[in-house]
């Protein structure tokens, strides 16, 4: 009773983050409402971007689709909530969304003091700089005296301060709340430099008037491990999100893809059998069906497929696998075994 009154009062006060802050089983709630509520960006090509019909695509979107495939065996049972950088954590804390998959950097502060948990890394990124090629700049170390456009409330803002300060370079920071305004201001010539995660630079470059007139500098000045985020204190849900990503990485490593999953179902390889659920009861332990991983691969694909489809060399973004290659290919994507 007391809680109910308080909820109403707080809701009215528009603080809203407290009363509904569910520590209860998110998985049960998700099953009950029959869809996953997924927090994404307001439009970042390759990661989470709506097309003209309102269909979302991208790597971060596929994390949520994979989750829905694992839970419901139906990758379309997802609803997306576009969030600004500033809103994202409050939306997750308050229970407005079930999972945040919005190119969010895993940092110590966010992991420890926001009541959140990072469920793995689906893209290893780093902060870079983009400039007009007409400036003739070859290295970020030549950027002293520049005006720098970026988003507020991001790790980017802090990294750029560290970088310019430690290299004793002068700069002027123009920080906008929305990514679109950063692009517009940079495009208008307000700034010499546009800085954000390097993948974001490739993605935002597509929105500029003449994308060909801009170059991304080679320096990467920070580590930006991006991954899905869940609320702290719900281990079952945390495990499910974490293993959804691991299943996709394991599938790529084992050579299971959406194209060959039919024949792989009959594979003799015990690791493949465990992944696809014909051996063991790993899905049950996660609170979903044993065909969870098979559904993910069938409906969304393995990690490599998702990467190539969203940001790979054949897309406008043209990003190489680089550090996001499997560990066996010299990259950082490594998933614990399913056994």
């Amino acid at each position, binding site marked *: 009773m007391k809680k109910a*009154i308080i909820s109403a009062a707080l809701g009215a006060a528009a603080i809203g983050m407290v009363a509904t802050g569910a520590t209860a089983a998110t998985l049960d709630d998700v099953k009950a409402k029959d869809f996953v509520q997924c927090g994404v960006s307001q439009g970042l090509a390759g990661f989470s971007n709506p097309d003209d019909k309102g269909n979302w695509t991208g790597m971060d979107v596929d994390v949520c689709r994979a989750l829905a495939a694992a839970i419901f065996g139906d990758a379309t049972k997802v609803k997306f909530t576009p969030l600004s950088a500033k809103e994202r954590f409050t939306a997750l804390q308050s229970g407005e969304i079930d999972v945040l998959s919005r190119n969010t950097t895993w940092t110590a502060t966010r992991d420890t003091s926001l009541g959140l948990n990072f469920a793995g890394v689906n893209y290893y990124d780093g902060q870079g700089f983009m400039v007009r090629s007409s400036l003739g700049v070859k290295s970020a170390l030549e950027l002293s005296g*520049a005006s720098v456009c970026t988003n507020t409330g991001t790790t980017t803002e802090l990294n750029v301060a560290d970088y310019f300060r430690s290299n004793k370079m002068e700069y002027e920071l123009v*920080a906008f709340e929305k990514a679109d305004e950063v692009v517009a201001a940079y495009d208008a*010539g307000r700034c010499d430099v546009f800085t954000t995660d390097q993948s974001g630079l490739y993605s935002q470059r597509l929105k500029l008037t003449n994308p060909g007139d801009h170059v991304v500098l080679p320096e990467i000045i920070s580590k930006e491990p991006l991954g899905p985020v869940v609320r702290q204190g719900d281990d079952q849900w945390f495990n499910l999100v974490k293993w959804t990503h691991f299943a996709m990485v394991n599938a790529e490593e084992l050579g299971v893809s959406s194209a060959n999953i039919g024949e792989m179902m009959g594979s003799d390889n015990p690791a493949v059998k465990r992944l696809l659920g014909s051996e063991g009861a790993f899905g049950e332990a996660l609170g979903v069906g044993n065909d969870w991983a098979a559904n993910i691969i069938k409906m969304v694909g393995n990690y490599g497929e998702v990467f190539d489809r969203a940001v790979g060399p054949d897309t406008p973004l043209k990003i190489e696998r680089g550090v996001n290659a499997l560990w066996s290919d010299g990259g950082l994507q490594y998933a614990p075994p399913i056994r």
Partner: protein
Amino acid sequence: MSIQDAGHVDDQAKVAFFNDPKVRSWAYQIILVLFLGWVIWSIRENVSANLEAQNIATGWGFLGTTAGFSILQKLVFYTEASSYGRALWIGLLNTFLIAFLGVIFATILGFIIGIARLSSNWIVAKVAMVYIEVVRNLPLLLQIFFWYFAALRALPGKREKASFLDTIHLNITGLKMPAPVFGEGSSIVGIAVLAAIGGIFFLRRWAKKRQEEKGEQFPVFLTSLGLLFFLPLIAFFAAGQPIGLEHPVFSETGPMIRRGFALNTGLSLSPEFIALFLALVTYTAAFIAEIVRAGIMAVDKGQSEASHALGVSNNFTLRLVVIPQAMRVIVPPLISQYLNLTKNSSLAVAIAYPDLVAVGGTILNQTGQAIEIVTLWMVIYLTISLSISMVMNWYNRSIALVGR
């Protein structure tokens, strides 16, 4: 109460203590206060209990930790190594700056347009009317975007400039002016300015007294202007020109990235500030113009006719008869326009002007302490608004009609 008892009631009615209206009203007040206190207390308790259960950091300790981000416009010292508390202070000062300048210029522009709207010149009146109707009916955020993005594109690029008398320059990075550099002895000039202001004050009193006694007028305005200009000028040369000018440095050679205006040279107004300032001033001025028009029209026509009949000039009629009476109508709605302008300045967040809301939002995101930041915002805006109300209400009382 029985009929027999009525005989015992003397001039002081004896009612049961719980029926005493005084006691009752007090009791209700106390119960209400206790109830409100309980509501606030339990909200607080619940919030902190829930936040703790969710492992979300709470408290005000974060204000002392290092901010680590840079701010575009800082009126006082701030670096990335300063604290979050300091960063908020910078944001608050930026809000003060835009609100203060905005209120002054919106008032001036609003009065001019309001009077122009009543002009007997057809073109002037219609131009003022069109201005008011257009500006007043477009959303403010749209106007801010217009000034920022449309005007930004029209300005010369970063490596070029448009100059006025070779001292004031304009390009996409803002308005660049020479900054005053105060050398040794510049305090003498400051003292001269204060002396001039003091002198004007006494001059006005003396001139008024003389006019009341002898009916002679003295050119107070021109003398004041001269005093304010020449006294500091004499002091400036007498002290050996202690105030210099630091011009913004513009380079046209060297690597492309270093061309244009060097950072932190001269005095610079960012395009974000200019856009927000223009949008707030033009928008609020349209409302003030209507208030001024209403105020002037509220003064009976007979007042100016009487004044003219006494041979008072048009100018003096407006200044001494119409406006003082109109002010009584103008000031109360003017207060709410000032409050609106101050609160609207928080739209700065859309175009990267680092006001209180923008800086607070950054801090909110870096620390995740939403409740603390939102509370701070509300308390600060409430304080600013109440202070403006207080000052303006005091002014309103001072010009109000005094009953004799």
